């Protein structure tokens, strides 16, 4: 059935020709140099673990929560980290509510691989009782406004919220030293995650026959 509704963005022939012509003269359409970033603002929430990143017109919000779960069988002494993305329809008319589309899943996996494979977040410090209880860290990324370069903005948001996240301290106590006590944040200062380094994503675009890059 032909498409009678207009909800995707179209590019004109004029724009395509003009952008390539301007890039040949090292000009970008919003007056930036080829390697300039748009101004980036990071805002933190009052509660640790939440951040909002604004990169030009793009806005991404990130929220970190934690839960005690059973570890995976093959890694009994490591915590887990999972990234969930949500592409809100208010960000772009092409996004649909409900199940994440292909790009949403790809973005989640890029951020996830960047954090997991580089070993940025220390997993072994999240272990409480080997083989029985570990902390599971969940990062939720909400795209609020799509102004381009979602991957970089989402990555910065995830890093910012992971850096400010605090988890409650828990110790083994009780009568037989086997009972797990999760301390209230009023009793004991909550602990930050151990982050070894910060993997930052930088996106490049290649135009022409591979000879122009921004």
């Amino acid at each position, binding site marked *: 059935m032909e*498409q009678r*509704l*207009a909800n995707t963005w179209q590019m004109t*022939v*004029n*724009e395509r020709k*003009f952008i390539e012509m301007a890039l040949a*003269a090292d000009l970008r*359409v919003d007056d930036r140099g080829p390697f300039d970033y748009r101004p980036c603002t990071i805002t933190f929430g009052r509660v640790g673990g939440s951040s909002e990143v604004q990169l030009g017109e793009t806005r991404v919000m990130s929220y970190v929560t934690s839960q005690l779960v059973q570890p995976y069988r093959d890694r009994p002494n490591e915590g887990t980290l999972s990234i969930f993305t949500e592409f809100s329809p208010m960000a772009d008319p092409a996004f649909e509510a409900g199940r994440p589309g292909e790009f949403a899943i790809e973005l989640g996996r890029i951020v996830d691989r960047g954090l997991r494979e580089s070993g940025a977040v220390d997993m072994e410090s999240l272990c409480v009782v080997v083989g029985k209880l570990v902390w599971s860290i969940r990062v939720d990324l909400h795209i609020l406004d799509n102004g381009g370069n979602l991957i970089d903005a989402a990555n910065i948001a995830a890093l910012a919220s992971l850096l400010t996240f605090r988890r409650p301290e828990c110790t083994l106590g009780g009568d037989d030293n086997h009972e797990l006590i999760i301390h209230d944040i009023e009793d004991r200062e909550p602990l930050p995650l151990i982050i070894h380094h910060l993997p930052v994503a930088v996106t490049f675009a290649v135009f022409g026959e591979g000879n122009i890059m921004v």
Partner: protein
Amino acid sequence: MNSMPSDSASMSFVDRVVVPGDHVLDLTGMANQTIKLGAGLRQDGDAISVMKAGKLRISKPNKYWVESSHKRYVPCVEDTVLGIVVDSKFDNFLVDIKAPMLGLLPVLAFEGGTRRNIPKFEIGTLLYVRVVKANNTMNPELSCMDETGKAAEFGPLKDGYMFETSTGLARMLLSSPPCPILESLGKSLSYEIAIGLNGRVWVNAASPSTVILVSNAIMNSEFLSAAQQKIMVEKLMKRLQ
């Protein structure tokens, strides 16, 4: 001092921001007059109340309407808009005009158009068209001719650069007397510009840097006053030299 307006209650709301629920006109004192209501206003018994947030405008003697600025466009008959060709069918081109539904441009709606000389537009062509029919149940119908059947300036636009803005900025750019930003830019640069009431603007000039300067200046001028727009253009010109 000017003569006192007959309906002093509504004069206090004209050219001011109103929100849904405001009663802007009291009809009890106006027994034998006809008032024409435009967009965003509704009659509620003895009062006229607002349905859409925006600025209340009046066109003497008796037309009232609410003007607001959006990023999406609601098609109206006789509007001139910029559309992008999405597909071509046997008797229509499907054209995207930033409305909820795609517009239909009949292949014969061109000056001297017959079945033998149907124009070939590739996908992504930018067109300057006029809205002929618009209601919210059917796809809007477009045309590349004016009422007399002449081409006027309608048709495809070549080269240049197109960007999207809100409908309020497009209306400001099209106002007469000419908008201060276009005038001050025109004093030092030469460019051509096509403005669609659906919030799309096309700019063309000899060099890409002029096009980029003009388009960024226009995008930044939406909320500036006339004096601020002139100052911004002066600063941009100084930076060029």
